[in-house]
């Protein structure tokens, strides 16, 4: 709704558009207190916002300028109602959401700011919810959003999808949506309810991109496929007691097969054109995990070679770590540790709890219990929320028992800064040092842009 209103009111009037929506919302709630909530509340809200916008334009058109490209139409009493009416048609709203999404991913904004804006304007998240999702303070989030809005307001109009800047802007949009999704999938927020919501929003916005011929490109299909594969595993990421489970330990019967099927279909559709993006590769890796009946039955050879490819397309320490974990699955913990030791830029991983945890896990598999314990303790000190801490503490107790029962961790990553690999987790490792196929695997699946993550869960 804010997007539709911004289209009419002009992007410089974004705060006004937000006020109109907020006002419509508050009025509706007040009336519904007495009269009950109607069957189709969103249609009511939409109609109320439309009428408020019309009132506002009539009242203030001499004092303010609205969308420059609509100026004359809004100034004439003959056309104003139909312009406002048209802006609220379902297709126009979709279009405006798309344009707003591109506007939010303004090159002058950091990726975090882009995502915060998308959540705020297009998903209706409050500052408090966004602060919660990104584990940052209310004040800092508020500042970030209001600064970002100023940048947005300075652009004269909503981004035009037909603009020549589309390709560059589209990759920023992809990254922002992936960041949003990953924040939901394995972000630092301890609240699982918020997280699933973030994943859903990212998928909804990606579906909007798929709906428009100019943005339904191979990378968009691949990204959507990737999200489907990850989302399919979401129901199994936490066990019944709310603890993280690693990819290898997940109850695969809880995976959502419909989403896996959707992902496959989208991945097929992504195979046109000549470009292979990191999303294609990551989706292919995720599909290998999704298709395997257990960690042992995963095609680790192909997983490793896809990671090799990913390292060429978008190298990062986190991708390298995920790759090393896959190597450990295939060739045993010693080889995994060698690979980890060879990661370029490994020092950038040291703040990342799942890096230490991965190293600990591999030592544990080799039977080097003391060394493993030290690494897990280092990981616990870096844990970002109680769920991660519980997970890592269990690993320490596994050291005490002298054997590893299960392992792995979930990864996450967030693309943010290259220096900070996102959080992720690591993968799992196999049982003690016996065979090289471990039962667990780590699956690193995601990573994304600069950062990338590791995944295991």
């Amino acid at each position, binding site marked *: 709704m804010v997007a539709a209103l911004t289209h009419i009111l002009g992007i410089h009037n974004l705060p006004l558009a937000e006020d109109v929506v907020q006002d419509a919302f508050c009025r509706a709630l*007040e009336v*519904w207190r*007495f009269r009950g909530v109607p069957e189709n509340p969103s249609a009511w809200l939409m109609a109320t916002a439309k009428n408020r916008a019309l009132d506002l334009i009539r009242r203030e058109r001499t004092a303010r300028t609205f969308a420059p490209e609509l100026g004359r139409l809004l100034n004439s009493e003959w056309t104003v109602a139909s312009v406002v009416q048209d802006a609220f048609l379902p297709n126009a709203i979709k279009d405006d959401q798309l344009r707003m999404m591109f506007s939010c991913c303004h090159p002058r904004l950091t990726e975090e700011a882009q995502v915060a804006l998308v959540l705020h304007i297009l998903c209706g998240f*409050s500052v408090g*919810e966004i602060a919660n999702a990104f584990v940052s303070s209310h004040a800092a989030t508020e500042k970030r959003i209001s600064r970002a809005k100023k940048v947005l307001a300075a652009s004269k109009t909503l981004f035009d999808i037909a603009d020549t800047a589309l390709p560059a802007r589209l990759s920023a949009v992809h990254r922002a949506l992936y960041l949003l999704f990953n924040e939901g999938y394995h972000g630092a927020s301890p609240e699982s309810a918020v997280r699933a919501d973030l994943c859903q929003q990212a998928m909804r916005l990606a579906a909007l991109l798929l709906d428009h011929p100019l943005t339904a490109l191979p990378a968009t299909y691949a990204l959507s496929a990737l999200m489907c594969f990850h989302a399919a595993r979401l129901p199994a990421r936490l066990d019944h007691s709310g603890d993280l489970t690693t990819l290898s330990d997940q109850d695969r019967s809880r995976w959502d097969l419909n989403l896996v099927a959707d992902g496959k279909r989208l991945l097929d559709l992504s195979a046109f054109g000549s470009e292979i993006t990191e999303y294609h590769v990551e989706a292919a890796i995720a599909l290998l995990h999704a298709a395997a009946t257990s960690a042992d039955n995963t095609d680790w050879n192909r997983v490793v070679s896809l990671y090799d490819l990913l390292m060429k397309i978008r190298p990062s320490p986190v991708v390298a770590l995920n790759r090393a974990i896959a190597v450990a699955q295939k060739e045993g913990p010693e080889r995994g540790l060698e690979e980890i030791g060879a990661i370029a830029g490994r020092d950038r991983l040291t703040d990342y709890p799942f890096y230490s945890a991965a190293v600990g896990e591999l030592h544990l598999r080799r039977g080097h219990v003391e060394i493993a314990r030290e690494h897990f303790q280092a990981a616990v000190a870096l844990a970002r929320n109680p769920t991660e801490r519980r997970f890592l503490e269990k690993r320490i107790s596994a050291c005490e028992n002298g054997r590893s029962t299960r392992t792995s961790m979930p990864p996450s990553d967030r693309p943010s800064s290259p220096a900070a690999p996102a959080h992720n987790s690591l993968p799992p490792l196999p049982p003690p040092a016996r065979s090289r196929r471990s039962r667990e695997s780590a699956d690193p699946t995601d990573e994304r842009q600069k950062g990338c993550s590791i995944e295991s869960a």
Partner: protein
Amino acid sequence: MGEFTFLYRGGDRSGSPEEMQQVMQKWVAWMKELGDKGHLKDPGHPLEHTGKVVKGKGKNVTDGPYVETKDIIGGYTLINAKDLDEAAQLSLGCPILDRGGLVEVRPIMKLDM
């Protein structure tokens, strides 16, 4: 059996959208409970905070009422109850009470025939 009005005065109307939504849901639940027990004659309406005041023999029309927010009447509901005590008892569940507002319970005047 008698008829009463609940006049709602004041009450904090600000808050985040999530809070407002929760408040709304409490109202809806409370109204439903009154209705289920047969006490709701008419749920009534919320009132705009703006209006005109017409006053005196001179019939002066001014904008208003400009009273303090805490005193402004924000809406009304018509209630069936056995007596004033029961009506007051029914108002105890009103969510406005948690938001700094008050409910004025007034019997509707009737002539017994």
